[in-house]
């Protein structure tokens, strides 16, 4: 983008419209959705499977675009988000909203046409949950915003499964719960070193409201909940030892990361003296953790 032209009147670049879809977040969403399809006991036509994944990606992108429209005021004051197309003035806010709504409708309709009504319904619920429950209701009101809001990111595996089978089962519900419980330690690790940004924007993230020390303990508690939960599919006989061993090893690794976060060098107020190096490492590890864990689900099913 030419830096001299940041006027919404000129219209955004094509890449700005793509940026509204939060492409980096989409990677994980597409991956978990694809895993839901792969581990389902029913095989569907590859064209329909790819269409289902496309719909999941577009729906997540649409929800992201509507989120950027709604959060444009706080995005403008946060370092991490002020370069986004709306606060940077490259795309007008109403255009972004319309873009998000059209894509959301398109994704749900095509999902219904290509797969089944249940998958389309769950997809619509996931969009509505992210937009109305997380973005508009929880995010600015409670430090528990991502504990409940994390459900929005947990839907793709369920959608993938329902797209293939047309029904629900214990395994996709467990995968949903795993992502739900994984989200708080993932996001709070980020929030620990970006708390200044959230404070400036007035977003009541846990480190802003309760402080860094309390947040570190919460990260540990949720990780302690997460590890046995990831072992449940193995314990219940829904997945085999490849998944079980992977979950165990990954879980131990996550606990080590979180242990370092908990006992990071800090001053009397709990502020990190290491520039939150352990929290940054835990955030990166949490992304790798979910990728490998879900990858192990697929490998276990296919081997």
């Amino acid at each position, binding site marked *: 983008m030419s830096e001299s*032209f940041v006027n919404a009147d000129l219209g955004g*670049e094509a890449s700005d419209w793509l940026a509204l879809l939060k492409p980096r977040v989409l990677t994980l969403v597409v991956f978990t959705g694809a895993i839901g399809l792969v581990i389902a006991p029913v095989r569907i036509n590859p064209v329909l499977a790819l269409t289902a994944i496309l719909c999941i990606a577009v729906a997540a992108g649409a929800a992201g675009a509507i989120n950027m429209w709604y959060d444009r005021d706080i995005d403008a004051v946060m370092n991490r988000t002020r370069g986004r197309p709306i606060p940077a003035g490259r795309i007008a806010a109403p255009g972004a909203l319309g873009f998000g709504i059209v894509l959301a409708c398109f994704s749900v309709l095509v999902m219904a046409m290509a797969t089944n009504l249940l998958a389309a319904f769950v997809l619509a619920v996931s969009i509505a949950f992210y937009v109305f429950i997380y973005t508009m209701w929880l995010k600015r009101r409670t430090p528990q915003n991502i504990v409940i809001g994390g459900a929005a990111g947990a839907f793709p595996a369920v959608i993938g499964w329902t797209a293939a089978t047309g029904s629900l089962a214990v395994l996709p519900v467990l995968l949903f719960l795993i992502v739900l419980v994984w989200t708080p330690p993932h996001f709070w690790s980020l929030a620990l070193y970006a708390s200044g940004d959230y404070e400036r924007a007035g977003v009541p993230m846990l480190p802003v409201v309760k402080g860094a020390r309390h947040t570190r303990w919460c990260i540990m508690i949720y990780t302690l909940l997460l590890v046995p939960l990831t072992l449940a599919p193995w314990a219940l006989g829904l997945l085999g030892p490849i998944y079980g061993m992977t979950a165990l090893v990954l879980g131990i690794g996550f606990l080590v990361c979180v242990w370092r976060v908990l006992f990071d060098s800090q001053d009397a107020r709990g502020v990190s003296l290491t520039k939150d190096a352990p929290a940054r490492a835990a955030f990166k590890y949490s992304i790798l953790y979910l990728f490998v864990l879900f990858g192990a689900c697929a490998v276990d099913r296919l081997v």
Partner: protein
Amino acid sequence: MADPMPRNELRENPWTPEERAEFSRRRRGRNFLLLGVLGGLCLLIYAIALVKLHEYGQMW
């Protein structure tokens, strides 16, 4: 004769020639993206229709 589709953004804005060229460049990029999306959508609907017809045994 009046332009049937007056493009006010090109005629009324006090843009410099560089801004006008930038506007045209961006619009071209957006139009190509839209073309790609619409073309992809047509192919997708066509492929879904073929698969569905095949699944229900109405074509082969």
